[in-house]
């Protein structure tokens, strides 16, 4: 039905990741992220601060408290700023995510490679109506892309949008398969 086209694309026509406009996560999420870090740290740090000096020599306790305080402070700063620098972008065929304070990482998941999408939220996220989207492809045994700190409604909307796109593509695929299916054998026969 559709006539197979294969127009040539020059390198300049390929959409470039460097020109994508990323949007930041919700500013409130920085504090949510910080407070969930606080919960995770308080659980081991407080008993540690109490017990460790008792086991070791007493003149060391000051150092230990100091060290724990430094680690806790650094984690707070880190969790706040890592949420601040995380950014995402939706394109027509994929979703991009950029993160990392010291190691900046940009990754994308193409909609037609997605196996499934999870929508999750931790206790703190739930309290403030945030969600995380987790994308799975066949290219790894664990989560391929996790976008945290999306307002709950946004996350659900994005997921619904991507899923409907995948389904539409799949429906189109069967018709496109015709052109592609024939291409595949010639491709290998050469």
């Amino acid at each position: 039905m559709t006539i197979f086209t294969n127009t040539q694309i020059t390198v300049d026509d390929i959409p470039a990741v460097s020109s994508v406009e990323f949007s930041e996560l919700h500013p409130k999420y920085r504090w949510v992220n910080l407070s969930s870090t606080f919960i995770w740290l308080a659980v081991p740090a407080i008993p540690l601060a109490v017990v460790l000096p008792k086991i070791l020599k007493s003149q060391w306790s000051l150092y230990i408290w100091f060290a724990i305080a430094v680690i806790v402070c650094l984690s707070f700063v880190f969790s706040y700023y890592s949420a601040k620098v995380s950014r995402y972008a939706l394109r027509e065929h994929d979703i991009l995510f950029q993160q990392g304070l010291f190691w900046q990482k940009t990754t994308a998941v193409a909609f037609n490679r997605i196996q499934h999408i999870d929508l999750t939220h931790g206790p703190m996220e739930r309290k403030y109506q945030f969600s995380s989207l987790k994308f799975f492809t066949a290219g790894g045994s664990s989560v391929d892309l996790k976008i945290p700190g999306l307002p709950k409604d946004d996350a659900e909307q994005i997921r619904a949008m991507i899923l409907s796109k995948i389904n539409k593509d799949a429906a189109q695929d069967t018709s496109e398969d015709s052109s592609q299916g024939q291409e595949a054998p010639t491709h290998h026969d050469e």
Partner: protein
Amino acid sequence: MTNESNATPTTEQTQWKRLSPVASVYYLFKTVKAFIGQAVPSLAPLVIVLLNSDDKALIASLAAVGVVTLLVSSSLLQYWFFQYQLVDNEIKINQGVFKKQHRVINFDRIQNININQPIYFRPFELVILVIETAGSKGGEGDLAGISQPMAEDIRDKILLRQSQIKVEQDEANNQTLDDPIDTTLATEKTDQLISTASTGDLIRYGLSNNGMYILLAFMAPVFNKSEDIIDYFFSKAELNAIVEALGGKLIGGIIIVVALILSVFLLLMLISVLGSILKFHNYRLTLTDETLKRKSGLINTQEESLNLSKIQAIARQNNFIGHWLGRENLVLRQAGGGGNKQQTRNNLFIVPARTAEQSEQLIKTLYTDHFDQIETHPINKRYILKTLLLTLLLPVVLISIPFVIQQHFWVMSFYLLPLLCYPLVAKRWRNYRYGKTGEYGLIRTGFIGHKQVLFPLFKVQRATISQSIVQKRRNLATLTIYLASGKMRIPYMPVEHARQWFDQIYAKIETDARPWF
């Protein structure tokens, strides 16, 4: 060819059939294997009863007879209750003695079909048809003990059906485009012999196969016990005499250690060579339409089929022995089963011991592009510095801290170690190259041997660009590419190259509708 699939099933097809009675031998092996794996640990109480009893011989023989009877009768029953039939495009299997199982396998769902022949089936000209579907863990859909022509017939039917689906879809959806392929695809079967391997080749494969070093890791516990083993064979006095005969305490000791290491190494090589001959004896690689078939095996014959569209990447690799022999191995990588080790090893389709030209020839058959003129780029030289400082020096420094605090400053001499590694790291840097065409990517790595991975860009699942602060200042980046068969990294490439790769990969996978699987 559509006639054939729609043909009314003949009477022969609609009846339930049993496997050959010899199949009970297969079930016996299977049951014994399961018995050893699962039941033996729970037999400990029985052993205690046995050891405490007065008449050990009687009880033991009673137990042995009991176990053997149980195993034999169980395998006979399993054979008796296994029935199968082919109806249209389905295989129906009924099995189970107490827990009945009815299984229907649709041809369209089948991923791999292999034909194996264990040695005990050979006199009867019987084979095992191994049918793998996406969800099967293996063994559930096996037809063990059917005749060779029958197995081949079933396999051809399945392959024919699968190529028909493709053609039918083409016809239904695209009548405007008449393609010469759909008339020839399913009907004309041309077996194209691609490769064979002589025993000499197999010996070379055994030597150049890295599996040997995996074996070495398994042997590690044995090395820990090596003293005990030596003690077992030689007395202290004899050992001393040998050391003396080899020229005194230290030199003699060193010679013994070196000789031991060498003999272990040679032993492993021997095992590897034997394994290679066992697995690849009478090796024949053929290409039929879209399916690669490997047939080989000395004791147990195996026939493995692989649809070309399932290949995720092709790796050419050799180690230093292979390098020296001028041989390399070609590994056709398939999608890995979610990190399951056992399965990932099975997902490698190995073409052993090939010369560089032979590999290039085969790659040309499988992929359309030519890779001889492909332009490759080196990664940035800072890779050496980073590897030396972060990967090698940092752990040494961290480990040394407690020693240095206690004022053992001599430990700091170990900091020179990374310096000694410099030539190796530099060599690795020099061998690290990458390149791409419009359709394919190429990544080359290696120390002394080399590994070159070629993959179609549209099979990529995901790509990631990462930059550390230092890399950012130097405009460098690390690109990680995830395929269904595993991930690959190009470290320390110019950031504009990384972005180019990233953009091209995503443009490719989003516009190319060919299925990656």
